[in-house]
């Protein structure tokens, strides 16, 4: 049998670049003469911008620290052991870089087992152990504390979570087993499954205490002092820590079943992590911790060697890293300041944009339109939305006053835009109209002003072509709902200059949007892929495949919604319009569904009866279909092949820099899931890429197990 040290040594050899977390042991006298105490501080030697993580060497450091305190505890030299973190950070779990490099299942097992072997020692010392969650705690950081006898948490903790399922793992260093045994299965499912699958929702310190994860809650100003004071009271018997009894009856099974239903609603069985976690939680009912830890080790190893987790880490890195440094963006020093914004149009989209610009840029925003009524309606909408923010407590009264005062309307573009630095149009989606608007605006704005368009499918180059200064035009394509979806496709037209583009990226950053640079190509990225994909599904329907069959075809991917539901969300009219545009550009690949045309003409909002997935009989009556009936699998194969082909062509055309940008767009603009890595990692691992384009999109090791 290998020792923990050998296990960790082997794992460390695989991951030489680890930022090692030290486990410093320092002794102190507890208040009130309670005795000598050993406090372990986890610290990687950097400030809070580089949070403390656990890799194999870090686990080895903690193991060595526990060796020391174990001996001291056995010798009666100390009355207790504590564990805390550097300022602002407790520990944020396993180092993902260390997971990415793992090639062999045995290495993956070593990481799981190594963590267990070290952490569980904290529950077997001769003295009680205490975790003091002083700052951000995630994953293994949370778990190391769960092995301690007691826990306190700071009210200042902004982020506390078990994000493993979000990434494609299970909390595998005791989380799945210890948490339900500590706080009950229902609450454990909330933390492990629900929060994780709700875009990795974080708990705050007070919630950690309310949930019963921590036994005591103290304010940040003297958190450690009060935790040690509390420790002294517990150790001296002045304070008895009470925890509620866990219901190990039917409630346990019900909680797990509710978790499964939640996971089904999110990923439709398409990603294994949540289900593996739930299996372990279900089994933890009998309280056999070691059996649970073994199950965690097995689940970790399986998941680490699986494509879903690799895609999850890839997607996480896209969102966390690539999104912050957009590929191809010009030097940000070229950006010009934006101190006033103009919005042409005062419809719903324009009003949403006005609200966003006012909130994020905090500069004057002027809406213009063709008549006073429309202008008033647009400004009125923004003011109402600000009032809603005020009611919800999202902004204070002063801020609401400020924001309202920032957003005004005008019929006079010359007066309104004469000192604007950035004007965006959101008028009717027709080239002639947009060109006219830009010409009017160019006549009145300062020479440096950027002209942006929110077009979803028109050529930005053509839109700029009749201007005196086409170099100042950029595409600024938002996704609906603007306040929810992070993606912003920034379109570089043929003549767009670097300063204008840099300004667009700077504005996007201020708007807190995920900006991706795209070429001026029809429908850019997200709409092009979605339309191609939708066209493939609609094509199958047109040929004779029943709507329900075609709509179910993509279910194994676990997309946020089925194609027909998506169609309903986008609106048949918009989808049909975009399809038309793309058909013009690429008639050989993008069809136009006559059936959809009839649905639009009939004024239908979707194919299903409202709120159901039953085909609307009126829609059914409109349909004229062939008699080729495809199976779900055939529809899926066609759709995936279509997507793979389209992405391949887009990369060849240079629409975006790399496949990574396509995936970032799909994740942030269409909500495509982490376990697909957007889509290209999935296409690679499903063999679609190889079949369609003769090669995978990514080298082995990128979103997959390295060879």
């Amino acid at each position, binding site marked *: 049998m290998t020792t923990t040290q050998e296990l960790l040594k082997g794992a460390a050899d695989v991951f030489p670049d680890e930022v090692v977390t030290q486990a*410093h*042991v320092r002794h*102190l006298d*507890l*208040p009130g003469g309670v005795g000598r105490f050993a406090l372990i501080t986890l*610290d990687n030697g950097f400030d809070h911008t580089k949070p403390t993580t656990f890799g194999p060497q870090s686990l080895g450091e903690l193991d060595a620290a526990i060796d020391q305190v174990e001996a001291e505890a056995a010798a009666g030299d100390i009355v207790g052991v504590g564990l805390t973190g*550097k300022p602002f950070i407790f520990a944020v779990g396993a180092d993902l870089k260390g997971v990415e490099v793992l090639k062999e299942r045995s290495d993956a097992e070593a990481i799981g087992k190594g963590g267990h072997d070290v952490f569980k020692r904290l529950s077997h010392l001769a003295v009680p152990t205490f975790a003091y969650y002083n700052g951000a705690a995630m994953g293994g950081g949370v778990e190391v504390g769960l092995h301690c006898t007691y826990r306190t948490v700071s009210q200042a903790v902004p982020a506390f979570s078990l994000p493993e399922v979000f990434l494609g793992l299970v909390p595998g260093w005791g989380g799945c087993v210890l948490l339900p045994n500590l706080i009950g299965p229902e609450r454990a499912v909330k933390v492990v499954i629900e929060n994780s699958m709700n875009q990795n929702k974080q708990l705050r310190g007070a919630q950690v205490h309310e949930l019963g994860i921590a036994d005591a809650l103290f304010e940040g*100003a*003297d958190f*450690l002092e009060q935790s040690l004071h509390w420790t002294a009271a517990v150790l001296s018997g002045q304070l008895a820590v009470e925890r509620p009894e866990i219901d190990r009856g039917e409630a346990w099974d019900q909680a797990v079943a509710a978790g499964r239903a939640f996971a089904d609603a999110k990923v439709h069985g398409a990603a294994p992590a949540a289900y593996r976690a739930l299996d372990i939680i279900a089994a933890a009912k009998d309280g056999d911790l070691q059996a649970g830890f073994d199950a965690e080790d097995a689940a970790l190893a399986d998941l680490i060697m699986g494509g879903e987790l690799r895609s999850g880490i890839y997607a996480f890195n896209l969102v966390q890293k690539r999104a912050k440094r957009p590929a191809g963006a010009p030097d940000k020093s070229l950006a010009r300041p934006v101190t006033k914004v103009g919005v042409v149009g005062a419809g719903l989209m324009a009003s949403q944009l006005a609200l966003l610009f006012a909130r994020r840029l905090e500069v004057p925003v002027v809406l213009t339109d063709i008549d006073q009524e429309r202008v008033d309606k647009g400004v009125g909408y923004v003011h109402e939305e600000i009032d809603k923010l005020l009611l919800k407590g999202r902004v204070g009264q002063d801020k609401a006053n400020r924001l309202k005062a920032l957003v005004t309307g005008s019929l006079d573009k010359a007066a309104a835009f004469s000192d604007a630095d950035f004007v965006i149009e959101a008028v009717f989606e027709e080239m002639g109209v947009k060109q006219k608007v830009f010409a009017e605006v160019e006549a009145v704005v300062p020479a440096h002003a950027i002209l942006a368009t929110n077009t979803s499918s028109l050529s930005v180059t053509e839109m700029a072509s009749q201007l005196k200064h086409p170099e100042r035009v950029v595409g600024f394509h938002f996704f609906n709902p603007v306040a929810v979806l992070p993606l912003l496709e920034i379109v570089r037209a043929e003549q767009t200059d670097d300063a204008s583009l840099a300004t667009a990226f700077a504005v996007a950053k201020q708007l807190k949007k995920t900006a991706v640079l795209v070429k001026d190509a029809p429908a850019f990225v997200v709409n092009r892929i979605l339309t191609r994909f939708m066209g493939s599904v609609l094509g199958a329907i047109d040929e004779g495949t029943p709507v329900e069959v075609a709509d179910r075809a993509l279910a194994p991917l676990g997309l946020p919604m089925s194609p027909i539901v998506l169609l309903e969300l986008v609106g048949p009219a918009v989808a049909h319009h975009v399809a038309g545009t793309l058909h013009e550009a690429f008639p050989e690949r993008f069809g136009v569904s006559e059936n959809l045309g009839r649905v639009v003409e009939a004024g239908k909002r979707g194919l299903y009866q409202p709120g159901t997935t039953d085909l609307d009989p009126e829609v059914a009556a409109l349909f004229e279909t062939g008699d080729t009936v495809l199976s779900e699998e055939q529809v899926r194969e066609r759709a995936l092949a279509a997507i793979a082909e389209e992405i391949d062509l887009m990369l060849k055309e240079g629409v975006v820099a790399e496949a990574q940008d396509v995936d970032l767009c799909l994740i942030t603009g269409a909500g495509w899931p982490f376990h697909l890595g957007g889509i290209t990692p999935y296409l690679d691992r499903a063999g679609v890429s190889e079949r369609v384009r003769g090669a995978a999109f990514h080298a082995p090791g990128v979103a997959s197990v390295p060879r």
Partner: protein
Amino acid sequence: MPRTARDVVFVDGVRTPFGKAGPKGIYHETRADDLVVKCIRELLRRNPDLPPERIDEVALAATTQIGDQGLTLGRTAGILAGLPQTVPGYSIDRMCAGAMTAVTTTAGSIAFGAYDVVVAGGVEHMGRHPMGEGVDPNPRFVSEKLVDQSAMFMGMTAENLHDRFPHLTKARADAYAVASQEKAAKAYANGRIQSDLVPVSVRRTNPEAGETGWGLATADEPMRPGTTLESLAGLKTPFRAHGRVTPGNAAGLNDGATASLLAAEDVARELELPVKMRLVSYSFAGVEPEVMGVGPVPSTEKALAQAGLSIGDIGLFEVNEAFAVQVLAFLDHFGIADDDPRVNQYGGAIAFGHPLASSGVRLMTQLARQFEEQPHVRYGLTTMCVGFGMGGTVIWENPHFEGAGK
């Protein structure tokens, strides 16, 4: 409008353990503002009957008011301590008598009726802010000989005091220092000090200074129990070759903070707050800057005169021990023996340390404990010398005095 001055009482006082300034000191990686914030929070915890919004002022002293001791510390520390935003605050400076002045100034305002309850205290992190940091003395001090050059250096003023009073020898100063260490060690052994200390979490990242990671400061770091005359005899005299002032018979360079709660007596009774001492009088006085250590003599004379008391009425003395010779000069003036049991019963700054602007409240906290234990004593005083030739004295009445006859 006719006014009635109100009685002012000392409700409570706490302090951090004092640390040694410098890279190996316990507070080397701890901010000054955090030290005083922890004191304010401890005061609130110890006095749960006090609604925080009843605090009318936070007056905090620091000598070097820059960096983490700047930014109007009284206000910022109040916010950091979690006091309601309605509670104002300010910073105050009278060098070593900073916290004492915070107490007397706010006490005067309480008596006047401007405040009901205040927080008064001080902090000095001499490791982060060495004495004289950022000072820019006016050249006229030298060119016009307004003060002697030695006035800027406290150790030199102590040597000057030995010159002025030749009978206050180094031997007497050393004997006094040894006794201070002995008394402090005894007070610790008897648990007299610890109950007013606020434990402070301290981080250390430099392994040369000791175990790294988070620790907890629970006791004064400068103490040297077991100090003997022999161990002091060989120490260097850094302020003058063959001089008399040594690190052994003077307070060191220290980090620490204090805070106290003061209230109008009627308000303290209304809120059922403890009354540990009642303010009788206070006074500050100036002397020649080059012998600043003699400052407590005229300030005490003035405070006694204001109170209509004589030195014989004072049953307990808390004299700050910046330098042993300066305490001896005070005692000598009033005809009190070097080892008079009424003086500094728990020891003094030579043992505990003297983080400049914080020390005044330490004297008061210790006097309050002694009042509690000695109800036969009616009056006590706290006094200290101040840089640039000043002294400050506060006379207190013991509310536990058995013969008060109220």
